[in-house]
């Protein structure tokens, strides 16, 4: 059973739809007691960093989440903003992140004459940096849907599982012990995303 954390700020329908498609049992959890009972967690996220962290704190979820992940070693997959919130801080706001990964969130910056738009919105390939369970049996040239203006910079390069390129390399997938993160949206990435969520479900 995968528990998708519902903290009131984002689009959870597509994640549940995709997990069902993959054949995984999934439920929404929105309170600390529910978090206490979860054995595998997905932290989705869209929108602004401070809003996301604020909403987790208001519901009393941030502390419980930290405990479940750091102490009980429950596998956690952060998706998009959900991955960024795993870091320590973000340029996007003043709020402290969850601190589950030693990383900071930075905005994409391009030269004024660049034709690159922010957000990075569209499909991209991954460049694997190391072996990792989430990458298992992904098809060659697997592509994933990205939609973000900020990206995570890991202090420890060993945490980086895969990068993608948008006017330079950025972290597309990370793992530190039982903490997993993807900057893209597996729930919106066809069979490629299904394969990845299947891998997470199999952990």
């Amino acid at each position, binding site marked *: 059973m995968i528990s998708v954390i519902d903290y009131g*700020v*984002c*689009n*959870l*329908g*597509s994640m*549940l*739809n*995709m997990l*069902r*498609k993959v054949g995984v049992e999934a439920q929404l959890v929105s309170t600390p007691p529910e978090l206490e009972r979860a054995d595998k967690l997905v932290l989705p996220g*869209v*929108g*602004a960093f401070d*809003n996301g962290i604020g909403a987790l704190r208001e519901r009393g979820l941030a502390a419980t989440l930290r405990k479940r992940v750091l102490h009980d070693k429950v596998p956690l997959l952060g998706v998009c*903003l959900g991955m960024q919130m795993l870091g320590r801080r973000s340029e996007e706001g003043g709020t402290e992140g969850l601190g589950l990964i030693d990383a900071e969130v930075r905005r994409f910056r391009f030269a004024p004459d660049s*034709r690159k*738009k*922010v*957000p*990075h*919105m*569209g*499909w*991209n*390939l991954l460049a694997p940096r190391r072996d990792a369970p989430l990458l298992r049996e992904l098809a060659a040239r697997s*592509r994933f*849907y*990205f*939609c*973000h*203006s900020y990206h995570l910079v890991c202090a420890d390069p060993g945490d980086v599982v895969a990068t993608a*390129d*948008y006017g330079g390399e950025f972290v597309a997938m990370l793992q530190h012990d039982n903490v997993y993160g993807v900057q893209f*949206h597996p*729930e*919106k*990435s*066809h*069979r490629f*995303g*299904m394969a990845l969520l299947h891998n997470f479900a199999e952990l």
Partner: protein
Amino acid sequence: MLHPRVIPCLLMRNGGLVKTVKFKNPRYVGDPINAVRIFNEKEVDELVFLDIGSAGTRAAPDFDLLADIASEAFMPFSYGGGITSIGHVKQLYALGVEKVVLNTAAAGQPRLVSEAAALAGSSGVVVSMDVRRNWLGSYTVCVAGGTRDLKREPAGYALDMEELGAGEILLNAIDRDGTRSGYDLELVRRVSEAVSIPVVAAGGAGELRHFRDATDAGASGLAAGSMFVFHGKHDAVLITYPEYEELDRVFK
């Protein structure tokens, strides 16, 4: 990034899919759920559904149908049509719609654009602009299915929408809709230059080279309707989408 997004843009009316020409004469082309399944198989970049039956009539979105469609959409899925309140927006996000598309509502109650952006981030909010070109060659933004002229110049209007919180502009050239004669590149250029958010060109796509023309003019995404639902010289209804490698070649 891989190639720019190529996006089937499907029109709904009374629960069925239709295709128009210059926003008129909707022709029935099939069942939306069936279409989503086919587009899944074809691994399309993204899907946009617009309910044109709702324009002007103020009928709320058909949430039951949209929940069925969203549960089959394993790609980014946008919906527009009949959205008039933040309650509608919330309901759409909850059932699995990635991006809400605001058109008439964005003009009439611009605050809704900001409220939606506050809820799910700018990237979840698309402002759709229907633009008509008059005989003098000047452009004007229309709403309510192209029936009401706002008498606004598109570049300034798009910039206003960006400032309100829109994360993307869906730019429809009414005069090109269903013609397959190519996008209105001048319009694409003007609006893309005015805003820093992505602009998706719509109206006029008929051949692969049209996609390239529009990205050269500044578009970040390419929407097409007729091109993906009609086939052959007799316009038989057939859902198609280019092979991925084919698209890669177009944009190389």
